[in-house]
């Protein structure tokens, strides 16, 4: 069993934040301008050193939507990273696959993987593990799992897309530096609907929570779990990961876990798209009703 998350910067790569995780995806793939972003090469050596000293795996998460011009700096970064003791790269763009020469590749969320047939194709390019598109239902992910290892998201605000421009600066016309603007998500409301935005990516307002279904996932032989944590603090990371650890080890029951996780959620919980419903809904295993 493995538990993973993203950590954007060295500053947020604290022992407390990552202590319960086995694998760290280094950097924020959504925006190369995010202050201190390891994905842009900031403090990469220090970040790798820190994770490795704690005996964990780390993958450099590469910018998700590079244009041709971005390859100049990204090729240099990849070359440098390949010489470090990282375990591999997290790739969100098909075009980057050929650039990885000697390390493992995990296909990230924004690679848009929907089918077993594309998973088979990605394997030919050196991909060992894939992040299923959030729109897929569990029964569809089961089919892809026959072909390739799956990173299974179990908690957190789901990214709902990616943009090449900034929601804060270009849409809301906010003034200020990225350090100030990008500190927390901007939350959007329309009746019962809640959305957020972290700059270049809209995120779900309701938080994915699969605590009630962890025993089913484990029975189905899912092994690589992931917690979405863009713009979340170390308290969230420590608490959410600790709850899932305890749940998997049988120290707490599912209902207790859901209650604890709901306290971390600003607006409430959802199951995403796993049960063929609208992404914002939560279906409880026990009463089949929204919590």
């Amino acid at each position, binding site marked *: 069993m493995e538990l993973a998350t993203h950590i954007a910067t060295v500053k947020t790569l604290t022992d407390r934040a990552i202590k319960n995780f086995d694998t760290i995806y280094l950097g924020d793939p959504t925006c190369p301008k995010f202050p201190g972003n390891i994905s842009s090469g900031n403090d990469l050596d220090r970040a790798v050193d820190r994770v490795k000293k704690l005996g964990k795996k780390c993958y450099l998460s590469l910018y998700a939507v590079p244009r041709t011009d971005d390859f100049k700096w990204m090729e240099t970064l990849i070359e440098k990273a390949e010489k470090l003791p990282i375990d591999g790269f997290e790739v969100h763009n098909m075009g980057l696959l*050929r650039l990885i020469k000697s390390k493992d590749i995990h296909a990230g969320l924004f690679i848009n993987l929907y089918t077993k047939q594309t998973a088979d194709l990605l394997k030919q390019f050196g991909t060992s593990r894939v992040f299923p598109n959030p729109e897929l239902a569990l029964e569809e992910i089961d089919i892809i799992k026959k072909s390739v290892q799956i990173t299974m998201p179990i908690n957190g605000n789901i990214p709902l897309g990616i943009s090449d421009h900034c929601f804060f600066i270009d849409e809301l016309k906010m003034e200020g530096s990225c350090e100030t603007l990008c500190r927390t998500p*901007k939350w959007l409301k329309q009746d019962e609907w809640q959305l957020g935005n972290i700059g270049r990516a809209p995120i779900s307002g309701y938080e994915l929570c699969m605590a009630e279904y962890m025993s089913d996932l484990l029975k189905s032989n899912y092994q690589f779990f992931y917690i979405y944590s863009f713009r979340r603090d170390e308290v969230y990371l420590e608490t959410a990961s600790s709850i899932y650890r305890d749940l998997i080890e049988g120290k707490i029951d599912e209902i207790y876990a859901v209650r604890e996780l709901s306290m971390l959620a600003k607006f409430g919980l959802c199951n995403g798209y796993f049960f063929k419903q609208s992404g914002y809904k939560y279906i409880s295993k026990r009463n089949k009703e929204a919590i």
Partner: protein
Amino acid sequence: MTTKLLAPGGNLEMAVGVLERGADAVYVGARGWSRRTENYEMSSKDIKTLAQYASVHNKEVRVAFNTIASSTEFPLMLKTIEEFNSYGIEGVIMTDPGAMSLIRDRFPDLEIHASAGANIINENDIKFYRAAGATCIVAPCNITMDEIKFIQDDLNLKLEIFLHSNNCFTYLGKCTMSSYIKQDWHIENGKNRFFGSPNRGGHCNRICQIAWESGESSVKMTNDAFLLLNTIPVALRNGVSYLKVQGREYGNSLIFDMISFYREVIDKCKNGENDLSGYLFKLNELSKRRDVERDMRTAGLLKIAKSNSEIKRIEI
């Protein structure tokens, strides 16, 4: 290389009508498989009729299979494409690279357009999609001259540029905001329609166009439609293969006028006329008519998204 005008066929009348008005090729949606709702897709029977008409008039037909199928739907997709291939269509429009790879193996002579939903944004992406089987690439927004040359000269691929389409806040093909708010699974003739998912079912609830409350203010996300004019002489000079007008979901009258307009402009440019300022007034008129239809459709889609009923049949 001759640049061709590629026009939408939201129904048989529109498809034949755009060819009559000077389009060199028409693209239509296979029912259940394209990035539009079923009102703007065509039955097998109509696609057969269209393919026969196009063949007689030396025109081309492309069929859009550009929603992303579920893994188990591939045998049905292959069977459907085999049927259309027997009608004599020249190509298909696809998004999923795994699907492209299968189609390339099974139908080696079929043109495969990598759809805008494939979100091809750099030269290495283009190499990947070529390896997957694509023979024609939809240009990324703000494509550079170097990229145009690379696609056509270095990789020997065809290139398609939109004259009429729209830009969303998120990259096309990677947005799941619509299905986050409302999604219904609905299987018809073995194909899931994935209502609410533009990537998988062709129905976008356009929730980005709601006035979202953000603190004291409200915000709609970018979703700008565009009609290009000055790109045409540049595209012709650089031998771009297809100039595409998006719009299966618009009324026939508007699309007929758009195609007649672009046919005239392209022919003028081919005859060496580069000053297109005389066409600006007509372009603005088309733009206004387009916006009226688009706004009405957006309002209808949002109304459905807000209702408690399942999406199922869409009559907008």
